[in-house]
Each structure stands twice: as C-alpha cells, then as structure tokens.
C-alpha cells in the first residue's frame, strides 16, 4: 500500500457530492474535516448544517449532525452545546443562512459567547434556489432577483458580517479568509483550526468567514470564477483577522 502524501480525511465521507463542478464547498468541507481529524475530535463533534447548497452536508461529514431550519443553525447549535458542553459543536452556513434570515441567531450566539465554531461560506449569491441576490452580493452584481444589477438605492449594500460580529464581546475569534488560491487555502485552514481551538479551550464564540466561488450562478467557469472572486470580492470583503482575544 503506497504511502500517501494526500488523501481523503476520515471526517469526510467517501461519497460523491451533489455540488456543481468547481463549487468550493467541497474544498471547505475538506479543510474542516482535516482540522477535525488533526485535532482528533471527530467522535466528540456534532455539526449543524443549514438550508442552502450545503444542506446535504449531513451526508458528507462523517460525524453526528443535525440539519437546521434556515438561518437557525446557531440556535440549534446552542441547544446541542448546552445539552453537551463537553462536546464540540460547529455550524456550517451560507449567505442566506447567516447574513439574511439568520442574522438574529448568529449575532446573539456571538453576543452570548456561545462556545461554538461557525463556518460561514460567503459566495455573494444564493446558490441552491437558483442564483438570487444575497445580502453579500455586490452593488451592480447581476443575479436572478437583481436582473439590472444590485441597485443600492433599493437593495442597499453588502453586509460585512465578520466586521459586525467582531464588535461583540462574546466573540473571541473572527477571521475572514478565502479559498481562491493555495496560499489563501492554507491560511483558511489555519483560521479554521484556530476557531476550533477557541472552542476546545472553552473561551467563547469563533467564526471563520470563507470567501468562495459559485461558478454556476456567477455564470463563469470554475477557473474564471476564482479570478472574479479575487478582483471583485476581495476589495469588498478584505481578508483579515477582525477579532483575536484568545487566551482571554
């Protein structure tokens, strides 16, 4: 048996995913799974998956999971974590889940310093329902519900969730990363690991916002989509660590 320099992590199930070709959910799932493997916590972790393209993540993570109503994952995670404070609980959410219908829940989970880890995938669009405007969509971005481009006068401006949550004392680690190139992917994995470590040390709420592509609904090839992310999303959503009060 050849020794492997790279293989599927244990915390990821060995099934074909339903994600579109080039969708970066697959990469982010893998990074989360690698971190869970490296920390050795698979058997004491419970994931809470959203409504969105990643609703089927309960089939992809090889650990206990609950599928939550749209936007409510942080509340569901709160229920799980309060029931089993010694276990590790994470949420995996998209734009609609965390930045639209679920803003109340994620703000309050962070405000309470809920000891959970939130993984927020920002691809500036609603994927599952067919490419509608997201709170994170850019001004002038054409989507299924902004066919003339997002009009700021009516539909406002994109939400920068990481910066907002960083103002809350209960939030101990908030970082925005991207998976559009190998260097950023490595930083993303490090941030994810830190976010889980904050929970393991019982310090408070941690979130990693991860910029990712949605080739299908952006109307681009997977490779072109990475370029669009770099040129358009990075200026709007700067990559940074917005809160880091670990060890506090």
């Amino acid at each position, binding site marked *: 048996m*050849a*020794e*492997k*320099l*790279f*293989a*599927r992590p244990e915390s*990821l199930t*060995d099934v*074909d*995913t339903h*994600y*579109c*070709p*080039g*969708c*970066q*959910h*697959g*990469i982010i799932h*893998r990074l989360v799974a690698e971190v869970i493997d490296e920390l050795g916590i698979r058997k004491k972790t419970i994931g809470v998956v959203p409504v969105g393209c990643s609703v089927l993540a309960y089939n992809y993570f090889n650990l206990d999971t609950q599928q939550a109503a749209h936007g409510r994952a942080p509340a569901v995670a709160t229920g799980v974590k309060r029931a089993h404070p010694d276990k590790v609980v994470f949420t995996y959410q998209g734009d609609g889940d965390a930045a639209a219908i679920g803003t109340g829940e994620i703000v309050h989970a962070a405000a309470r310093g809920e000891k959970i880890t939130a993984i927020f995938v920002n691809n500036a669009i609603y994927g599952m329902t067919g490419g509608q405007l997201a709170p994170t969509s850019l001004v002038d971005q054409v989507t299924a519900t902004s066919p003339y481009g997002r009009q700021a006068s009516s539909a406002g401006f994109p939400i920068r969730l990481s910066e907002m949550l960083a103002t809350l004392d209960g939030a101990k680690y908030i970082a925005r990363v991207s998976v559009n190139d*190998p260097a950023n*992917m490595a930083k993303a994995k490090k941030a994810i690991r830190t976010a889980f470590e904050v929970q393991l040390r019982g310090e408070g709420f941690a979130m990693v916002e991860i910029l990712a592509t949605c*080739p299908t609904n952006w109307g681009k*090839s*997977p*490779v072109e989509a*990475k370029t669009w992310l770099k040129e358009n999303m990075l200026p709007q959503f700067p990559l940074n660590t917005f809160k880091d009060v670990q060890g506090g």
Partner: protein
Amino acid sequence: MPKPVFREERCKGCELCRDACPQKIIVMSQTFNSKGYQPATCPDNLKCTGCTLCARACPDVVIEIHK
C-alpha cells in the same frame, strides 16, 4: 517518486487541478466518465513533484498523491 492517482468517476471536469498544477502536467481527458464529464488526468506523471496543489484544489477529493 510521487504520483497523482485520479478517481476519474468522481471527477466533474472543473479544471481547478489543471489550473493549480505548477508543472502544467494535468490535462483534461478526451473521453467521458459515466456522469458525462471529461475527467482530469496526468499522463506525464513522471514530472510530478508531489506538491499536492492539484489535490488541494480539487473540491471532490478525486486525487490522491502517492509517495
């Protein structure tokens, strides 16, 4: 000698690995897998340096890198 191993049935032809490979040795196949995608392959794998960038760029865990 590091070698990339592709599970072609898992591949969705997204080309992210081809784009990621610094050696430019990944090409998309002329044939189709059972899902109708043209999977990524590495015919000239002697040039593989084992950097694993292709495997990391793949959203579908298609590629394993063997030592």
